[in-house]
């Protein structure tokens, strides 16, 4: 009988992480969150400034260029009413995120006391380097120690921290290039990066949470030891799946929970969505057809939940109507209150869904993509700056071949991810996942016990198999893990692990032969590293029989694949004109993934899935639970056509199933026929007729 896959099915809980007790700044735990996934309550209170004669005036944002309010007195008004409306009458959620200037309000303590009394969570944001605090808006501020102390005293761990928000993007767009000279090495670039963030976090009492806009840097924040939560502002800013491979990976590697904050903004679509407006706002930035579409917002909400986010915060504004009111019973009296908008309804439906399905499992990500600690990789184009120079790492170094490999890998597993935020039709923000949404990114410094939670590892980029890292990989494979590595990443001897030996020479090649099919493939010119096979099966060769791909099976059950082609890529391709980064245009890569690598690596990745999804391309996420026969499957149709397909559980029949969007049961059997409407998401609870996983136990 075939052995069941051994699967890690426990959620990250910082409190039981062996490193927790040693941490000076404690990450937020599930206990702090009362074991619930939280949603946003509100983002702002009404504030007034008080003039010299005690006259109250509306507090408005100062003009962007020049001027400031000086030392005005500020007061928060009607905050209890706002809390009643958002946290009780409508019950949007329990997380409040406020701009930092609240700490300047003369009734700041009163506001904090009220938040504490209602058991709500508080985040404070608005730090922007170089901007004067006197503007009372985005500012380079330093919270006074007594303010910080008061927040901790009254809210305890429910004060989630000061926001390190969007600063990764800001650093890359505006600061990284200011270093003179530009870095020569990744290590140097990392040191530069860290200087910026040490400076920033020290202003913020070293008690921060990360809300990234370029989350491929998430591990570095987790590594700093002063971040309580890791998260990202998602929406129109990038490919969510690729970003969360990094965020989840960092969360797991460092034992910190993660969250998402869904934004209405999309530069490419000219601003932010406000479905309540009938026409575009005169300032040209807000309107019913601007920003992130409502269909996308819905998918982002449910996917965030299935990505195991501990908080799914949504939308900057627009939950309640400014125009329409409804009559509701408030404190025993009928009162007119603002009506819900489409955004408000969406959030409440999602919150109700969370309430109905509190046990939505643990996302199944059996494959670790391992990058070098100093990788500094960012997608080839992104928001910072939008339409800026493509193919930069760390914001100040050009991509090298290994960085292109990471990019091309993501282009295969999340096809079109590089288009995110560059197309008016929102393509690329969510994509299909032909091999399953089954990856986390770990960095080479990961502890052994974290790596051993995975079933397979793919080493990507300029990551070299040597020293301590090689030892961790060796133990991982001995424990049953599988590995894919490229010959140019090998440094120290690993013959026992891989069954091959590097000969130390390279040669050019323009074809490959798949051994099993005896199929010859024409390839673009590539550089191969010559290897000698000492104890492995050969899966692909040149036509002269030189090995191109080998596989060594270990008694533990693990398999080690080696690809002889340099990064599995072609040599640099010549283009007739330079690559430019423009909206609504694709961004070509100067390298090509070799066909034999494509033919052997990606089907190998697919076999780690627990389900088979048969039909046109679709995004699918599997979640596992403590019950070995219960799975959850999220199907997200990111296409304009309805999706029709079949879903099968590998090695079992579907005994019963429930569509969690409608809570209606579905007919079981060898497979399920499923339809997903265009731009919609369906989450299925599947019960197999027998166990389909074993729980992994790791010390």
């Amino acid at each position, binding site marked *: 009988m075939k052995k069941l896959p051994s699967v890690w099915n426990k959620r990250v809980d910082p409190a039981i992480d062996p490193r927790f007790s040693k941490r000076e700044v404690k990450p937020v735990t599930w206990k702090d969150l009362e074991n619930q996934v939280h949603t946003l309550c509100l983002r702002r209170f009404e504030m007034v400034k008080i003039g010299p004669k005690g006259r109250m005036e509306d507090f408005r944002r*100062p003009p*962007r*260029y*020049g*001027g*400031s309010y000086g030392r005005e007195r500020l007061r928060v008004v009607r905050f209890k009413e706002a809390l009643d409306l958002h946290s009780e009458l409508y019950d949007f959620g329990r997380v409040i995120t406020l701009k930092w200037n609240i700490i300047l309000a003369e009734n700041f303590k009163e506001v904090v006391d009220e938040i504490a009394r209602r058991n709500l969570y508080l985040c404070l944001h608005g730090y*922007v*380097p*170089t*901007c*004067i*605090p006197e*503007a009372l*808006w*985005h500012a*380079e501020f330093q919270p006074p120690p007594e303010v910080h102390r008061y927040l901790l005293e009254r809210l305890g761990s429910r004060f989630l921290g000061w926001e390190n928000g969007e600063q990764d993007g800001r650093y890359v767009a*505006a*600061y990284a*290039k*200011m*270093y*003179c*000279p*530009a870095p*020569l*090495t990744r290590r140097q670039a990392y040191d530069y990066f860290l*200087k*910026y963030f040490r*400076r920033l976090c020290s202003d913020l009492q070293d008690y921060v949470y990360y809300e990234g806009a370029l989350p491929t840097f998430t591990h570095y924040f987790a590594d700093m030891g002063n971040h309580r939560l890791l998260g990202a502002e998602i929406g129109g800013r990038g490919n969510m799946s690729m970003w969360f491979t990094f965020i989840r990976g960092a969360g797991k590697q460092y034992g910190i929970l993660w969250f998402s904050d869904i934004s209405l903004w999309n530069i490419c679509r000219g601003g932010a969505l406000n479905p309540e407006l009938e026409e575009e706002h005169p300032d040209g930035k807000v309107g019913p057809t601007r920003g992130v579409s409502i269909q996308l917002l819905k998918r982002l909400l449910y996917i965030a939940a299935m990505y195991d986010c501990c908080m799914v915060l949504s939308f900057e504004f627009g939950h309640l109507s400014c125009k329409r009111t409804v009559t509701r019973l408030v404190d025993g009296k009928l009162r007119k209150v603002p009506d819900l908008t489409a955004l408000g309804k969406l959030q409440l439906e999602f919150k109700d869904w969370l309430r109905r399905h509190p046990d939505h499992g643990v996302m199944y990500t059996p494959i670790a993509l391992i990058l070098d600690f100093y990788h500094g990789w960012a997608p080839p184009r992104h928001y910072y700056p939008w339409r800026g*120079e493509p*193919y*930069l790492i760390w914001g*100040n*170094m*050009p991509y090298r071949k290994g960085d292109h490999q990471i990019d091309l890998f993501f282009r295969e597993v999340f096809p079109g991810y590089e288009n995110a935020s560059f197309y008016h039709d929102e393509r690329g923000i969510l994509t299909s996942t032909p091999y399953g949404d089954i990856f986390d990114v770990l960095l080479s410094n990961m502890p052994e016990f974290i790596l051993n939670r995975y079933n397979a590892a793919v080493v990507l980029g300029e990551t070299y198999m040597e020293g301590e890292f090689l030892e961790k990989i060796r133990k991982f494979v001995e424990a049953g893990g599988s590995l894919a590595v490229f010959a140019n990443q090998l440094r120290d001897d690993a013959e026992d692990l891989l069954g091959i030996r590097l000969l130390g020479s390279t040669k050019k090649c323009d074809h490959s032969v798949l051994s099993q099919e005896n199929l010859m493939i024409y390839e673009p010119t590539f550089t191969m590293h010559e290897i000698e096979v000492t104890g492995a099966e050969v899966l692909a060769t040149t036509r002269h029989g030189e090995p191109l791909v080998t596989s060594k099976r270990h008694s533990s059950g693990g398999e080690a694949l080696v690809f002889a082609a340099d990064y599995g890529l072609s040599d640099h391709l010549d*283009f007739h004109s*330079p*690559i*430019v980064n423009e909206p609504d245009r694709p961004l070509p890569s100067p390298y090509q993934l070799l066909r034999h690598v494509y033919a052997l690596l990606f089907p190998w990745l697919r076999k780690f899935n627990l389900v088979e999804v048969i039909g046109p391309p679709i995004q699918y996420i599997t979640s596992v639970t403590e019950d070995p026969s219960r799975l959850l499957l999220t199907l997200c149709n990111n296409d304009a056509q309805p999706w029709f397909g079949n879903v099968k559980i590998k090695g079992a029949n579907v005994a019963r199933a429930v569509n969690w969007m409608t809570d209606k049961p579905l007919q079981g059997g060898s497979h399920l026929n499923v339809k997903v409407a265009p731009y919609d998401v369906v989450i299925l609870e599947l019960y197999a007729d027998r166990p389909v996983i074993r729980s992994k136990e790791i010390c």
Partner: protein
Amino acid sequence: MRSTAINRWLFTGVSIERLAGILSDIGFNSVELTAWEVLNKSHEDLESIWACLHAHEIEVSAINAVVSFVPYIHGSITDKISWRRKEFLRVLENIIEKMHIIDCHRLIVSPGRQAENYQTRDEAWRTTVESLRHLGKYGSRYNVEILVEAMPFRGPFKYSRDIRGLVEEADQPYVYASMDTGHVALAGEDLKVAAETLGKHLHYLHLSNVKIELGRPLLDEHRPLYDGTISIEEFAGLLSMLKDAPLAINVVTLNDPIICAKRCLQLIGNSRR
């Protein structure tokens, strides 16, 4: 004899004793140090550095605060946040006070970055001028020239005309301009035109190269003089135009720094031997 220096940070990990010997052997007569090297050293340490260099007839051509201090991260003379700017000016004053120990009389600074919000360009200009006036006055007490250099990624004052304007408006006898060939090229200016723009204010020259190609990111790489877009002829033309200005080769490489330094010096044909 023209003062011909090379930047200290090309030789990371090489002790000052060894470096003095190397530079003397190659044919340099001065070296440029970073501001950190002065700031973090005691009076005795600086004396010992000077002694090492002096033994090989190597002078300190200038102290470079541009490579040591990045706006916001370390400070900026353009900072709108008044107490931060004053704190940074105090750091620069501290360096000026120490420079006499190593017999150095030039401090290179750059305008900072305009604040992201709530600072107009004019305001940033006035703040920079105010800082330069302050530094000029302070420098005059210690016989230290304040040399302002344009930085391509520390906008908005990244052109030679901006530097000239700042120096003229600061109107201090101890405030002058420095020019880096790589920075000028990154700003899209012609070397000779930039030098002409700076005119009599130009008191110091940095030589570095950059790679400017369509489709390649623009980076302040400080490439060796022989490896980049600026041609040998352009360097030669500039040097013949600025016969007396002290110069410093300001480059970095992952390859052998000694070979790099030799090749750069050979290229400018200005060995003192």
